């Protein structure tokens, strides 16, 4: 038995919004792989829960009218990885969430939960930042869209109003088109591991593959919230892909990131691996885009 005060079950998004207003103290629960564990630990013991897990309308991946990728917030990690649209347009996201926890956790864990809990180590977070994803929130006055960068306010806090739930994550067409990405997770073991550092890089090359038209890089665990690296991106944008460029690009991330000392790893170690991961992820992304590191 969980130590919960009460459970309110939403059957639809409208239901969930009404329950949010009716029970302002209640915690939203999606897949529960964070909330229920925290409840067991006593951190959230005795709380009311609003379950949105049964809202099937919030599951699945589709293309909207403008061909943006739309990922329902309750889509599980394993379904994202297996989804044909994800594999075609944003395979790196499927690969990133395939490194969360274990197979069973990937069947229950949702992309909505992964982002709403606001943790920097979430395996989806760096890729969503690197693709400038848009968070769709639904409240009593309708839908609000927030760039993912603004959605994360500080560690553990995201921009959800008291009457809102997160209903989808969008990846704009301009963001995924002709774009190829690679994610590297550094952890001490291969399964059931929280990232020591996560790095996601994507590139769009010119048609002759000789120029990096656009490069984006984001990290998880390089600061209190996931972050992009504008200095490193400026080095790569418009440049010709080469090994020397990869070195220069990777060194530039140090100006952008702000990792901390924690029991998992020291700041110095995280800075060290951040450089190497940036180099490797850029190299792989360029290869995936059909380019060569001269």
């Amino acid at each position: 038995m969980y130590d919960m005060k009460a459970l309110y079950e939403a059957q639809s998004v409208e239901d969930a919004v009404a329950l949010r207003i009716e029970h302002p103290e209640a915690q939203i629960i999606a897949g529960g792989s964070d909330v229920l564990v925290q409840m067991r630990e006593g951190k959230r013991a005795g709380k009311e829960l609003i379950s949105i897990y049964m809202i099937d309308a919030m599951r699945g991946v589709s293309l909207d009218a403008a061909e943006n990728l739309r990922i329902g917030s309750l889509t599980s990690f394993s379904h994202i990885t297996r989804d044909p649209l994800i594999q075609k347009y944003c395979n790196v996201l499927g690969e990133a969430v395939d490194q969360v926890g274990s197979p069973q956790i990937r069947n229950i864990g949702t992309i909505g939960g992964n982002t709403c809990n606001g943790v920097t180590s979430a395996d989806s977070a760096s890729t969503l930042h690197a693709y400038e994803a848009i968070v769709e929130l639904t409240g009593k006055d309708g839908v609000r869209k927030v760039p993912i960068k603004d959605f994360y306010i500080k560690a553990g806090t995201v921009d959800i109003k008291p009457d809102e739930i997160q209903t989808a994550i969008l990846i704009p067409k301009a963001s995924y088109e002709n774009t190829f990405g690679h994610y590297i997770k550094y952890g001490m073991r291969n399964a059931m591991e929280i990232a020591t550092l996560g790095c996601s890089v994507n590139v769009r090359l010119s048609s002759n593959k000789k120029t990096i038209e656009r490069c984006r890089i984001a990290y998880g665990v390089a600061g209190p919230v996931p972050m992009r690296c504008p200095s490193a991106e400026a080095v790569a944008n418009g440049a010709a892909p080469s090994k020397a460029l990869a070195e220069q690009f990777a060194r530039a991330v140090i100006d952008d990131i702000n990792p901390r000392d924690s029991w998992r790893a020291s700041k110095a170690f995280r800075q060290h691996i951040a450089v190497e991961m940036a180099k490797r992820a850029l190299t792989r992304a360029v290869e995936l885009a059909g380019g060569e590191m001269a």
Partner: protein
Amino acid sequence: MSTQYKLVHCTINGKAVEKMVDVRASLTDMLRNDYHLTSVKKGCEVGECGACNILIDGEAFNSCIYLAVWAEGKDIWTLEGLLSPDGELSDIQQAFIDESAIQCGFCTPGFIMTAVEILETNKLYTDDELRKLLSGHLCRCTGYENVFRAVKKTMYRRQGKEIDF
């Protein structure tokens, strides 16, 4: 507050059932206490060890971090459902015995249900893929190698292929 109950209908091991369930219950609680399916083990109870693993609509879930009320309308399978009507073991259960993939047996039901999900895909996975697919279970007896062999052997047999360990 007074205890909150909900009527939960689902299919368990092929049989349609319904029971009033305490909303605070995990699916592990419901399967063990209300349906006496004690192959579903209480291990870590925080979704790390895989001892409580079962299949819901064909996918593996740690039932300890799954609310019992979410079972509504779902098709649930536990290890008990693998036995044939005359009590014969399934091929994957027999393979666990043949390969000495069990010792104390606590992790076994969970491991086997994950193996069922893997085998039902009818794919021939590489060793690395198989290890990743089996990574959601902790076993303190066997050292995993025998579990891996049991699943791999069954996967090859079902595909009618020769095994190369």
